[in-house]
């Protein structure tokens, strides 16, 4: 009797394990599905680079309202050099408080460039940030860091973006 019960117990246990394994297999299979397909990821990257491209054009003077003296961001920050997006938020001495990158961008637009500030929630501002962050991709995030001199990811000679530049600085 005892032997039979043990046999039934093992049989039941085996069924349970088999069921559990099958369940796990099904669940694992479901979990293993990538969050996005290759096609979806390609679409997302295309969308990102489109915004980065727009930021690059803005950075180089495509929006006249951002400057009244002809200067564009790219004059002082070629390849977004020394824009240091990875160090924001940080204290900005001229404003006397900690600010995010978008406020620093607007400070540059309104002060050295004597232009009109962008709406901080606008597509243009998102594009400006996207361009700066994209060129600093892989850099360690160091908020608050007072940098002496930083440069973006080294850009090899070559296209970078398959698009014609809009020119640094426009002239009224």
């Amino acid at each position, binding site marked *: 009797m005892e032997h039979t019960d043990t046999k039934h117990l093992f049989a039941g246990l085996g069924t349970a394990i088999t069921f559990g394994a099958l369940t796990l297999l099904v669940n694992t299979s479901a979990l293993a599905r990538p969050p996005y397909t290759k096609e979806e990821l390609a679409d997302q990257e295309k969308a990102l680079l489109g915004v980065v491209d727009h930021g690059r054009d803005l950075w180089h003077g495509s929006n006249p309202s951002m400057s009244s003296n002809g200067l564009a961001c790219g004059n002082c920050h070629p390849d977004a050099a020394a824009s240091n997006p990875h160090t924001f938020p940080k204290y900005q001495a001229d404003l006397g408080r900690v600010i995010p990158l978008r406020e620093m961008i607007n400070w540059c637009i309104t002060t050295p460039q004597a232009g009109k500030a962008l709406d901080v929630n606008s597509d243009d501002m998102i594009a400006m940030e996207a361009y700066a962050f994209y060129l600093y991709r892989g850099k360690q995030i160091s908020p608050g860091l007072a940098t002496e001199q930083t440069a973006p990811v080294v850009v090899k000679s070559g296209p970078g973006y398959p698009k014609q*530049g809009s020119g*640094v600085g426009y002239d009224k």
Partner: protein
Amino acid sequence: MDDLKSTSRRDFLTISARAGLTTLVASAMGINLGLVQVVTAATSRKVTPFRFAILTDAHLFSIEDHKFDVFLALAVDQVNDMKPRPDFVVYCGDIAQNGRDDQLQKGQKILSKLTMPVHYIPGEHDWYLDMGEAWRGRFGKPTWSFDHNGVHFIGMNSILVRDFWTAAGMSAKQRMDTMEMLESPICGPWGVREEQLEWLKNDVKTLGSETPVVVFTHSPLWDYYPRWNFQTEDAPQIREILGKFERFMSFHGHVHQTVYNKIGNMSSVGSLSTSWPWPYPDVKLAYPNMRMNRSDPALVEDGLGAQHIDLESNFQGTMHYDPFDDMLKPAIKDGFKV
């Protein structure tokens, strides 16, 4: 008044930046002189000691009363006030921002206040709207040489690129716009090209190896950072042609920063601009102590200025950076030997 006295020049100029252009006269309050000793092995030819100055990269816009007009005028005053007086000034390119003749004319007018002769070479911002026509009309040939006090001086046009505009059907304005972008992916590398290399060969053909030689170009004669055309593609050929000399000095514009290098018999020095400072690219420099401090964008004049060079009888040179504001590191201020 006490408050004014206790305000540092740096703070004062920060205030000036906020207050606008009318306060730019504050820069007349004082000038910091930085000192860099470019001491190299002396040549055997005797030089009558003298001083010359370099101005570069004004990037003037057509807009009236632009702050860059003021900065160039300040640099002109700075040079005119130098004692001893420089024998001449070399302008190392980029008077204009967009290659327009009105911009060149404005620069010519401001630079005409210099009380000594001026020699000019072009930059890419001067050239690609009309392929240098207006520039040549105002400043003459872009390639030249002359002798002064025992030194042979050479100027060359180093911003010549291969034709990227004809096949693309670009207008003159599009060509200029494309060249204006420092990191343009289209323009390709600059160089002096075959005609000037031939000219250079002929120019130095009869000079003895002991002749002191100084060369001016817009871009550096070494491979600094090609992405931003901090280079001259045929610099190796230039250095080879000038390799027969015991040594030569190269001075250049374009980089808008202090930078020094030495390759073979060449010592190379970059110049401060009078428009905006450029960050240092992420490359290893042979002389990293020659870098200036990071510029503060709140100080409208920070990172800008003029420079002058004193040549001694044995062709030893002393490079002085003359910034508008206090932005030189001690290593540069106190000088160093190379």
